[in-house]
Structure formats: C-alpha cells, structure tokens
C-alpha cells in the first residue's frame, strides 16, 4: 500500500491534535483460564509518554499488541486515531499502522536484511514516491538520529543488543509516526546503554511530539522518559499518574514496586 508524504501528512492533520491518539476502553483479554488484562482503560495524547509498568506476565506486551491490532481484546476497544482496531477494515487498520511505530522487545529486525534494508523496509513498501537516493538519504538521516551512522551495511547479528534496539527504533520512526510504541526498550541492556536509549527516546519525543507508550520493568527509565506512569497488577491498572503521584501512594503494591519493599 502506497501513501504519499502529502497524503500521510493530511491523515496526520486529520487526527485532531487535541483528541487522544490512543484510547483504551475497558479492555480485557484472557488466554485460556488466565486473564491477563481486566478492564484496562486509559488514553494518551500527542506529546505524552505513558510508561506501563508491572510484573512479568501482567499483559503489558499484550496491551501493545492489541493497540497495533495484532491481537483482539475479548471485551472493550482500542481506539487508535479514531479507528477501533478490532472492528476496522483491513485497509483502515493498515492506514493506522502506517502512522504507528513499534519497537519490539527484541527489536525483531529482519535477520536476512542489513541494518539499512531493515530501516528502509517501511519506506520501500509505503513510500514508493521516493527515489532510491532519497530513500538512502532518509535511512542515513534516521540512523544518524539514533546514533548508528556507519553501521548501515552490517547484519543484525553483527551488532550489539543496544544497537539492534536503536536500529529497531530507526525503523519504527521511518514513516514519521504519530504514535510510538516501545516494548521493553531497555530490557537486557547494561545501565549505560539503557541510559542512552532513554535519552534517545526523550530526544525523539521532544522532536516528534508523538503519543508514546513505553512498556517496561525499569522504573528509572520510566521516571526519565514518561510524562505519566501506569502500574499494572493482575491485569488491572493499580495507579496512574506522575512519578511523584506514585511516590505518594499508600498502595502496598506500589510501594513494593517502587522501593522493592517486601
């Protein structure tokens, strides 16, 4: 599916700036007898970053997959740029996805393609108006933005985990998304690399003013990059607010999560 830059920008301007880009309404999801999401609701506007924290297996990644339309909720709705992702037509879902960038937990780079080809992938498929030289320039610009200049010809297996995350981030940004979804961007990275990724996400968020959701276990990372934090337990959002709001909370689970206080 081909979308010109003009059409893309029109679509972006169509999504009203003052309305939330992401609206999650009473979303529930179960796998067999295990309920991983239980009536989750929140919204995210452009320029906001919501960090979703919680214990492993509490459905944080499933939430992102529902937002992208890779899974459907059992109940409730994910309204993304006005489209209900579980009811919209395939064409409408594609249009919404073109305005989203998704960094997967393990970057999910295509291992048969070079870093440059990975970053160019969305451009090749959706920006056929670009010449090869223009596409190359755009990829170089994205790689420079994430600090990967000079690595464009390497294969994903030849770069470190942190670099793979950066390349994944560059790919997620290729189509100038309105929404950015990051699944554990600092997982498995050393503290210095984690800090670099946080700074990069913060910088990108300041420049692009996207509606972002970051799923993480890393409280320091959440505090650094998020405007709001939602803490999940047993499929529900226990508390949602700023880091200071979480610190003031009397909830035992919040205290345990913040201070490892058992």
């Amino acid at each position, binding site marked *: *599916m*081909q979308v010109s830059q003009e059409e893309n920008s029109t679509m972006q301007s169509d999504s009203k700036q003052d309305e939330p880009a992401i609206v999650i309404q009473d979303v529930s999801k179960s796998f067999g007898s295990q309920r991983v999401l239980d009536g989750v609701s929140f919204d995210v506007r452009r320029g906001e970053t919501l960090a979703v924290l919680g214990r492993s297996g509490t459905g944080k990644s499933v939430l992102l*997959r529902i937002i*992208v339309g*890779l899974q459907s909720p059992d109940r409730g709705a994910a309204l993304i740029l006005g489209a209900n992702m579980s009811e919209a037509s395939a064409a409408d*879902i*594609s*249009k919404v*996805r*073109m305005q*989203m960038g*998704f960094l*997967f*937990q*393990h970057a*999910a*780079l*295509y*291992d048969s393609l070079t870093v440059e080809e990975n970053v160019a*992938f*969305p451009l090749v*498929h*959706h920006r056929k108006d670009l010449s090869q030289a223009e596409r190359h320039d755009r990829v170089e610009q994205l790689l420079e933005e994430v600090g990967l200049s000079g690595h464009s010809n390497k294969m994903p297996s030849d770069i470190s985990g942190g670099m793979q995350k950066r390349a994944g981030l560059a*790919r997620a940004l290729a189509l100038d998304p309105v929404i950015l979804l990051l699944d554990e961007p600092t997982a498995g990275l050393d503290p210095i690399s984690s800090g670099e990724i946080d700074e990069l996400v913060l910088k990108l968020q300041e420049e692009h003013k996207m509606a972002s959701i970051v799923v993480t276990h890393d409280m320091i990372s959440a505090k650094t990059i998020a405007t709001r934090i939602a803490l999940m337990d047993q499929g529900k959002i226990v508390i949602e607010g700023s880091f200071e709001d979480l610190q003031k909370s009397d909830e035992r689970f919040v205290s345990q999560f913040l201070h490892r206080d058992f």
Partner: protein
Amino acid sequence: MSTSSSIAPPSEMKSNFVLEMLEWFGELGIFVWQVLRAGITPPFQISEFVRQLDEIGSKSLPLVALAGSAIGVVLALEARYSLVRFGAKALLPSAIVFSVITEMSPIITGLVVSGRAGAGIGAELAAMKVSEQIDAIEASAVDPKKLLAATRIAACIVVLPLLTLAASFFGVLMGWVAATLIEPISLTRFISEGFKGAGFKDFLPPTFKTCVYGLIIGTVACFQGMRAKGGAEGVGSAATTSVVLSSLFVILADVILVKVILLLFP
C-alpha cells in the same frame, strides 16, 4: 514422569487425533484462502517473488540434476537387465525416456524440492515467527501472507516444472551414458528411438502436474512455518513437519494425478 492414570484411553486419543486433524485442515483452508486473496491483490511483491525463484529454483538445481542423473543411470542398468531377459533390448531407450519423463523425474523432483525448499521455507518462516519478525512486518502495515507466503508458493509453482525438465534432461542424458557404457549406442539413435511414437501429450501433462506439487510444498511449508510456536524446538518441528507433510501430500497427489492424466489424455 507420566503414570498409567495420566494416559488417556485409546478412544479418547483417537478422537483427539481426529479433532486435531480436522482443526489442521480447517486452519489450512483459511490460510489458503487468505494467501490467495492477498496474492491476487495489487501491489504485487515482484522483487520478493524473483528472489524466491532464485532461492528455491537455482539453489535446488544441482540436487535435482544429481537426482535425475541417478535415476537415469539406475533405470538404464535395471531396465536393461529385465528387457534382455524378455528379448526386448531394443526398447531400452524408450523405457528410459518414458520412465524418466512421465513418472520418475516429476516425483523425484517433488520429493527433492520438498526436502530442500520445504524444510528451508518452514524453518525460515518459523524462525521469523518466533522472533516476532512476522509480527513486525504486520505492524509495518505489510501483509506477511502476501510478502512471505504468496511469493514462496507462487515461486514453488513456477519452479517445479522447470526443475522437472532439468531432472528429465539429466536423467535421459545419464541413462544414455550408462547404456552406452555397456553397449555403445549413439546419442542421436538413443534419442530418436527413445522418443519414437511419443507426442507432447505424453510429456507435457506429467511435467506440468508438478505445478500441483509446487502448490502443495509451498503451501504446507508456509503454513507450518507461519504457525510455529515456541523457540528452537518450534522451528525444528516446523521444518520437520513441513518436509514430512509436503512429501506425503506430494505422493498422494501423484497417485491421483496419474489417474487423472490417464483419463484426460488416454
């Protein structure tokens, strides 16, 4: 460790197997419909299709040529022995040419490609599935069934008859080499005697029936790969089942197609 009490009774195991089989065929039917719909809807993934032609076709050629050559040699030796016993030695070129082209090359090519390309496609797509690469393609608003499955299945359909022609060529050539080493016969005479009384209807249907083999191999391998679960075990299982099931279905299809061809081209 399982105990005797945890083992399901045979009747329950049988019904579970039937249910799983029905579920598998049901899912396969949905998959085929989705791939077909995606494959015939523009934009077409031409560059990926061409890449798969090379991946499945060019890279299978040496193995197919070798298998075809082996068939030619074995047939020349075996058929000669039998024909001499019945005093029909003059029919050796025809026996080799007809056996190679009408049956041996198509089925051997199908099985060789099933083993090489079927395992390759199954393992590649399974690895992409378990490492979320297929999800990443979908999240990029690109249909993985169009990009990954339709291109591979189409490439298998196109490539199988071409590889069969190659196997037939090497089979006949090496059949002549083997025959002439025992009792010299010129290639011209071998060919003219081998193809005596034969028409296109003798050779085209058996060659083009391999399009069906290609459809089977590509579809089964893509289906098994794209539904893989788990880690390395899931990838290995997808590769193995791709080969086993596609080989099985190729053999079953061969039995049916032989009968159909005999009915349509008596």
